[in-house]
């Protein structure tokens, strides 16, 4: 059964077609990677899946619900969780409080005005566990604003994990990472594989081929090829699309 | 009869709108480029009016009085930019609000200290005190016509300055992309100061022209400041063209509201009630205009940022 099923998705900006009758699915427990050159329409696609941009046509079905017109927060409540390409955290909170806030989003009502959050030990136990899973356990008390770039990327992922997701939408998790940090991030995502359905958008081809169960190639708003890493590597159309870009070779 | 009244109110609206434009042009640029909420913009308008009234009296003539007032206000504006405001560009909006509110307090009290608490008398220059017959049966104040002419002239000059010169190019680039403006180097600091001086001179011009029509008194700046902000928001922050269109819209709606809403109300309501509600409804009209515009276009009519 597929966790995410996109069919006939269409989006136009003025006369420009940025999403062109696109079909895409992510199965339960699958890591589906989406690659494509700059300007292929990855960002607009993510925006439509996560709910910050409304498609002109087509359907998005997630976990058995049609969510095409849902606002972003309702999608998140249903278990669609995303990370951002440009780190998007809560800089004035500590690392631990960042994650606790994210957990708060999916554990009971937040219209509570009297009981201090600090007294909710369940919230903080869950937050500590997420920190341990993302390798941030030593940094919990630090202000989030004071972290380094690699740690910011880890926190970005931690926030996405904290909302008990069914599907992770990872928008270039390696963006701007050095070799060492990249390696750590790949290992981290490897550990998440099969626990969640994951749609990974990434430029780092080594990471993509190492992690993905299935790869789809986006060009001018359309999926031009989809299949295993081997199949994509040998696909003539993809080679043509990436002509001059050495990453794929 | 009612056609003539309508024509006269159109001219009044245009005249008031053009003066609002002088205020809003500087405000929108400072806001768009330097990201500064300058509440003290209205104080420069007040200062301009006071200086123009005083210098007209000293020189005995309107034109040199106004010219000197423009120059002096521009200098004060640049001094203000150099001493206080430039240190606020990188601060958050709320710090700017507090600091420029403090400047209003200082400006108002300094004005009281120098000129006293009584409103200043500032008469329409004798040569322009008459009226001109525009159409048979439609005579219109020569001074108000002059205001319209000056307003249109300044608008045209600004259009050329911003559309056709290198400084204008920098200004436009800055309004649409602030990071780029700051990246353009050391000259930008001087550009900001000059820009601020120009904005201050425009304030002074508006103060000098409106002074003889409205009262020259402490507090005059705050009343018009809000109208100028309404214009900026309607037009789109950072857009001079937006400020122009917004100013004319606000000028006309405000003038028509004042002229026609009480008249219209009298047809339905008892006169006492109509007289009470009329001016208020007229004053409300521009706020309704702003909210309607924002519901239609949340970034104003001419958003300068994508």
């Amino acid at each position, binding site marked *: 059964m597929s966790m995410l099923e996109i069919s006939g998705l269409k989006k136009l900006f003025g006369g420009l077609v940025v999403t062109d009758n696109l079909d895409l699915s992510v199965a339960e427990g699958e890591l589906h990677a989406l690659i494509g050159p700059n300007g292929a329409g990855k960002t607009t696609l993510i925006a439509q899946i996560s709910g910050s941009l409304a498609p002109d046509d087509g359907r998005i079905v997630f976990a058995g619900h049609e969510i095409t017109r849902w606002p972003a927060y309702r999608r998140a409540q249903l278990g669609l969780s995303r990370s951002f390409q440009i780190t998007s955290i809560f800089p004035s909170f500590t690392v631990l409080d960042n994650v606790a806030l994210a957990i708060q989003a999916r554990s009971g009502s937040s219209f509570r005005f009297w009981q201090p959050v600090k007294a909710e030990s369940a919230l903080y136990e869950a937050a500590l566990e997420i920190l341990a899973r993302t390798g941030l356990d030593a940094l919990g008390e630090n202000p989030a604003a004071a972290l380094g770039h690699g740690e910011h990327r880890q926190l970005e992922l931690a926030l996405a994990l904290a909302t008990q997701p069914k599907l992770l939408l990872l928008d270039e998790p390696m963006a701007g990472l050095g070799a060492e940090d990249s390696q750590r991030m790949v290992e981290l995502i490897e550990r998440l594989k099969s626990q969640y359905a994951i749609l990974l958008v990434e430029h780092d081809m080594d990471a993509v081929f190492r992690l993905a169960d299935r790869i789809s190639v986006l060009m001018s708003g359309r999926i031009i090829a989809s299949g295993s890493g081997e199949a994509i590597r040998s696909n003539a159309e993809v080679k043509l699309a990436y002509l001059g870009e050495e990453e794929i070779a | 009869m009612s056609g003539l009244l309508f024509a006269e109110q159109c001219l009044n609206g245009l005249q008031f709108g053009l003066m609002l434009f002088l205020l809003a042009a500087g405000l929108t640029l400072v806001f768009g480029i330097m990201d500064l909420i300058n509440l003290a913009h209205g104080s420069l308008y007040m200062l301009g009016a006071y200086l123009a009234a005083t210098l007209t009296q000293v020189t005995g003539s309107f034109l040199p009085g106004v010219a000197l007032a423009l120059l002096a206000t521009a200098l004060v504006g640049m001094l203000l930019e150099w001493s206080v405001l430039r240190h606020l560009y990188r601060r958050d909006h709320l710090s700017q609000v507090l600091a420029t509110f403090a400047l209003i307090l200082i400006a108002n009290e300094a004005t009281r200290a120098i000129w006293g608490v009584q409103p200043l008398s500032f008469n329409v220059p004798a040569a322009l005190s008459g009226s001109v017959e525009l159409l048979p049966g439609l005579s219109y104040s020569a001074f108000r016509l002059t205001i319209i002419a000056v307003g249109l002239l300044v608008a045209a000059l600004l259009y050329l300055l911003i559309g056709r010169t290198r400084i204008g190019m920098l200004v436009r680039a800055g309004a649409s992309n602030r990071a780029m403006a700051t990246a353009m180097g050391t000259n930008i600091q001087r550009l900001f100061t000059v820009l601020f001086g120009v904005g201050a001179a425009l304030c002074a011009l508006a103060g000098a022209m409106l002074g003889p029509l409205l009262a020259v008194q402490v507090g005059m700046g705050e009343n018009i400041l809000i109208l100028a902000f309404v214009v900026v928001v309607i037009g789109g922050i950072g857009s001079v063209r937006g400020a122009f269109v917004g100013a004319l819209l606000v000028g006309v709606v405000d003038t028509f509201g004042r002229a026609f809403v009480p008249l219209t109300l009298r047809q339905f309501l008892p006169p006492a009630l109509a007289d009470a509600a009329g001016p*208020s409804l007229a004053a409300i009209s521009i706020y309704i205009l702003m909210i309607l515009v924002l519901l239609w276009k949340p970034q104003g009519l001419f958003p300068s940022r994508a």
Partner: protein
Amino acid sequence: MTMPTGYSRGLAYWPLALLALALLLPQLLGMFGFDFYVSFATRIMIMALLASSLNLLVGTGGMVSLGHAAFFGAGAYTVAILAREWGGTPATSALLSWPLAMLVGALLAAFIGAICLRTKGVYFIMSTLAFAQMLFYVFLSLKSYGGDDGMSLTQRSTLPGIDLGADVVFYYVVLALFAVALLLLGRLDRARFGKVLRGIKDNELRMESLGFAVFRFKLVAFILAGAMAGLAGALMGNLNNFVSPNMMHWEQSGVVLVMVILGGLGRLWGGLAGAAAMLLLEEILPNFLPHWQILLGVILLAVVFFAPRGLAGIFRA
């Protein structure tokens, strides 16, 4: 560099000391023959209540409203109109009219918030201002309620067994209400709702994508602040026995906003610190200087440049 997660014990004592001082203040003032200042202290607390309610929006939730005086004025007029229309009936009882003033503030905030909270940044500032100005002009034109002259109250609201007409009694009632309000705000700040508001201030987009219905949280905060401002208005009307449209003019909103920034954005004691500093300066400076507002301006500028986190920020190193 680490941030304290708990609240250190030392800090818990000075609010109690402040409360003790506030409880003894009327006696202390009486000892020195300064009874007049009891009403002044009451005024500070009412403005502090108003500023604290705005601080919930601006400091905690990042919603910069320049129309907060609308709810203040609406609360004041609620009490005044009840007294005018139904004077001498139970409608003038504080038990009825003050909650009603809060309800009016809350309903008005629900309406204005539902529209304005769809905009952001300066557009939010200007639309809150627009609604407040509209209300100002409506009351300006209501001649039957005094129009621009305002309206006097013949007497303060009544409470069974308590004479609110006595300034000292009224002082203690206001003190009790302000203390409760501050307690509630302090709890709220540390509870889930407060964390959500601070999260929204930090990063609204991320809050949405985590699954928070951001608009709802903002609206509830707006309504709470409106109710609290309505109560402050009811108290101010009672203190002065007078209400006027100027209570809801944008300059009033601006002054309260200045109090909040001056006192300390998002700090529990910021509203009190700002209101007290501002009103005390306005009270004291004229005794020494003819053009004291210049000095007030300079002091405010100094705060912007030398105490960027406000007065309450100075005390938390």
